[in-house]
């Protein structure tokens, strides 16, 4: 395990209306020595509240601070902040996350020794310790129905959902290949990120992570997920509110964009090799 994480990671955090959470996230990074303060860039994504002044008065000295002209979505925010990343690896974090240990150093070690890995997803966990199963298979139409509706509780959909969420892979407690990992917290090689054109800004929210992982695979790199490389995700699950809520609508809009870019089969989860760009 490498003792010195500092100097290897650039961190990008996109704030939108949650300055306290952003500050907490930054604080955990510094306290645990995960990255140096000057390797952290906070993007103020044009929040409607007083995020800007709050962050300016409370961010630790030395953190990079950039302000977006308008809120063009999460992907655009990440891209904007990543322009200031100088280190070999970029750690992208949602503001509603924080670290409780230095297990991320294992992810970094793996990236350093295995040049075939392009992106590592972290083990997102609720503050209670409950796992969020943050690695997924690519969506089939049934997955979406299963996840988005009450039907998902019934067999056979229940099994399809379990498969989609890669539940069995987690049991082995070892790094495993995932079709995609959640964009809430991940590590990516900077050179690769730049080469594949960063995040696709046509997604406003949701699916940008699926898209990114598809492109990482497409570039010949692996996407892996690492159980026990913990990132606490204090998630208020807005998108579980049903398909017609604001979040649900945004999710569907993102799916539409994804469908326009990639061909997705109806029933079986496509798997890495079966997903293809249209």
């Amino acid at each position, binding site marked *: 395990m490498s003792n010195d994480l500092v100097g290897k990671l650039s961190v990008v955090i996109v704030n939108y209306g949650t300055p306290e959470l952003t500050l907490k996230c930054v604080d955990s990074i510094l306290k645990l020595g995960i990255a*140096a303060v*000057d390797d952290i860039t906070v993007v103020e994504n044009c929040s409607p509240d007083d995020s800007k002044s709050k962050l*300016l*008065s409370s961010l630790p*000295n*030395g953190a*990079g601070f950039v*302000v977006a*002209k308008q809120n063009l979505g999460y992907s655009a925010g990440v891209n904007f902040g990543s*322009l200031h990343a100088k280190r070999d690896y970029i750690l992208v974090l949602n503001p509603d996350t924080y670290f409780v240990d230095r297990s991320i150093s294992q992810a970094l070690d793996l990236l350093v020794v295995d040049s075939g890995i392009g992106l590592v997803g972290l083990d997102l966990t609720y503050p209670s310790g409950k796992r969020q199963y943050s690695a997924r298979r690519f969506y089939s139409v049934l997955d979406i129905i299963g996840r988005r509706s009450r039907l998902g509780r019934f067999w056979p959909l229940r099994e399809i959902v379990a498969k989609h969420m890669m539940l069995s892979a987690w049991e082995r407690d070892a790094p495993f290949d995932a079709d995609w990992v959640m964009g809430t917290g991940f590590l990516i090689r900077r050179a690769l990120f730049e080469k594949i054109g960063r995040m696709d800004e046509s997604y406003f929210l949701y699916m940008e992570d699926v898209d990114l992982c598809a492109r990482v695979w497409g570039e010949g790199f692996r996407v892996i997920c690492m159980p026990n490389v913990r990132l606490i995700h204090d998630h208020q699950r807005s998108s579980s509110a049903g398909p017609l809520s604001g979040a649900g609508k945004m999710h569907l809009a993102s799916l539409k964009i994804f469908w326009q870019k990639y061909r997705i089969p109806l029933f079986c989860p496509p798997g890495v090799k079966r997903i293809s760009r249209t």
Partner: protein
Amino acid sequence: MTILVTGAAGFIGSNFVLDWLAQSDEPVINLDDLTYAGNLENLASLDGDARHIFVKGSIGDFDLVSKLLAEHQPRAVVNFAAESHVDRSIHGPEDFIQTNIVGTFRLLEAVRAFHGQLEKTAKNEFRFLHVSTDEVYGSLAKDDPAFTETHQYEPNSPYSASKAASDHLVRAYHHTYGLPVLTTNCSNNYGPYHFPEKLIPLVIHNALAGKPLPIYGDGQQIRDWLYVKDHCSAIRRVLEAGKVGETYNVGGWNEKPNLDVVHTLCAILDELSPRADGKPYKELITYVTDRPGHDRRYAIDATKIERELGWKPAETFETGIKKTVQWYLDNQAWVANVTSGAYQNWVGKQYCA
């Protein structure tokens, strides 16, 4: 290539960054401690511009500055960061000593270490440009010739003394350690984003609010005035072509007694934004007790920069002051934003006692 600009959330620094990015694509790292004078709203037009990154922090933080230099490898450092208001220095000199002297010293130390390990070409091309003031030269009698670069340093206020000390340190780092430094000594600036504690924006601000326009003593203190954008173009020119180790006076060839400045402002406001009752703004002028050690006259001889580097101000006082008033009229939201509670207290303490 990149440049590191300190104090770029302040009046002159923010104008410098805006003008810099308007004529070059070279990114700017803005290191500013955001004191009362620092206001990131000055740079709001750069939101979404990846060429500007803001880093909150002090020039006196050696570790932080060292890290920034190592990370961004700037080809130049332009040092605006300072406590800059003479009146404040009279009430509380401590911050002036800490920032202007100790802060500049630590900044120089970090820059020296960084510069020392650069490879040859980068080392030769690197520049540290220190922005200073004509107040270091002291005060002039009415008919004395204007200050040239060889005029003796005779600072009279804690502010000018602290700036003088920083100038000496900068000079010493050149002679002792071979740091490629440049120093500019400039007269009074005015223009957009000027914090309304200083004469010109204060008068505009108070006049528009129908408040008294305070004049110290007889108002016959003479200053040379330079439009801030001319100051910025002078700094760019010195950075580009100045001779290492040299100092350059920057001035506007516009000597004016303060009272004349206030009268001019009133006349422009009468024209651009007449008072509701039709009365002239100059009726708002009130005389207040002069401040201690108030220098009578500064005048700057900016022949050297014109002769050696071909720089001249583009604005006369008449054109520049008109632009400035218009800017304040067009940017009342900015004014409202900066004139917060803390500011009100300060103005109250200064002029109404």
